[in-house]
């Protein structure tokens, strides 16, 4: 799917979220779904397998988020899965959260951490990132064990990387 198509999808989905009157909540849930899809091989295999009947794949979506997410979120995810565009799910949903952030005059700040951050840490981190970038940020923390330790923050085109993984990679390159 082209970048323009991804943006078009995202704008349509964001319009639905706005129409539901819960744009921020739905965007956050879609973001969480996108991260879950990225981190789970099993979920990717099931949702992306065209040989599995779409009814069965929609049942999986329903079982995963049916009771925990907004009804609109479940319907959006089901629509993406049913349309056979599930591979583009992370890109589309990332664009949705970016639109949501822009709507609140915020920049999306995605932070990857090896461990879950406390609310206090998230608040202080959001403030620090806002100070560093000069923009109000919509902080999204993704727990990613592959970073080993430390954090990496992406705000727009800016990347602030202070992870153990990157330090080890730099060390390996130097060696």
């Amino acid at each position: 799917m082209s970048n323009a198509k991804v943006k078009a999808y995202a704008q349509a989905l964001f319009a639905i979220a706005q129409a539901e009157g819960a744009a921020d909540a739905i965007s956050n849930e879609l973001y969480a779904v996108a991260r879950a899809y990225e981190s789970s091989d099993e979920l990717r295999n099931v949702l992306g397998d065209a040989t599995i009947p779409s009814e069965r794949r929609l049942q999986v979506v329903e079982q995963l988020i049916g009771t925990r997410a907004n009804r609109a979120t479940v319907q959006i995810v089901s629509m993406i899965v049913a349309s056979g565009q599930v591979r583009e799910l992370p890109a589309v949903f990332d664009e949705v959260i970016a639109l949501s952030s822009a709507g609140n005059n915020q920049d999306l700040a995605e932070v990857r951490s090896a461990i879950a951050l406390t609310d206090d840490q998230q608040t202080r981190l959001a403030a620090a990132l806002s100070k560093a970038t000069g923009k109000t940020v919509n902080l999204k923390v993704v727990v990613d064990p592959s970073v080993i330790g430390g954090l990496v923050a992406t705000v727009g085109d800016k990347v602030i990387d202070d992870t153990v993984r990157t330090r080890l990679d730099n060390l390996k390159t130097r060696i």
Partner: protein
Amino acid sequence: MMAHVISLLAVEDPTQTHSWILPETAEIIYGGLATVIVVSALVKFAGPMIKKSFSARTEKIQKELDDAAAAKVTAESDAQNIRKALGDVAGERARILAEADAQASAVLAEGRTRMTAEIAELEAKAEAEISAARGRGSDELRNEISVLASRATPIVVAATLNDQIHKDLVENFISKVGAGR
């Protein structure tokens, strides 16, 4: 005449002769005449035949002698040819043997030279391969160690990171970013 002779014999007694050893005169005369006639006839008629027979026999014998001499000459010539051929065969055999010896020596020398060159080439090739394998082995070992180290390091580091270290890393990040990094 025969009738007269028979009449004479008939009138005389054959048992009564004038000599116990000599025949009668007429008998001598007639006997002598008959002998002359018979001998003359023999000389006239049988003589040439006998003479011819002897001449033919002589010629035949002479011819056989000549043939034998010619055969002897031929045999001697053949014997000489055979002896010469034998000599040639012996010479040819010696020549072939000498030629074979020379060829064998040349082949042996060439083979020895070629084998020496091939052995030298193989030795050089083996040396080069051993050297390359040694270098390759070192490189492979170094790469393997590097790969293993790069795989092991994150695992080891991750295992050594406890909650406090994780917390310190997060706090350190927030501080650095907040300080206007």
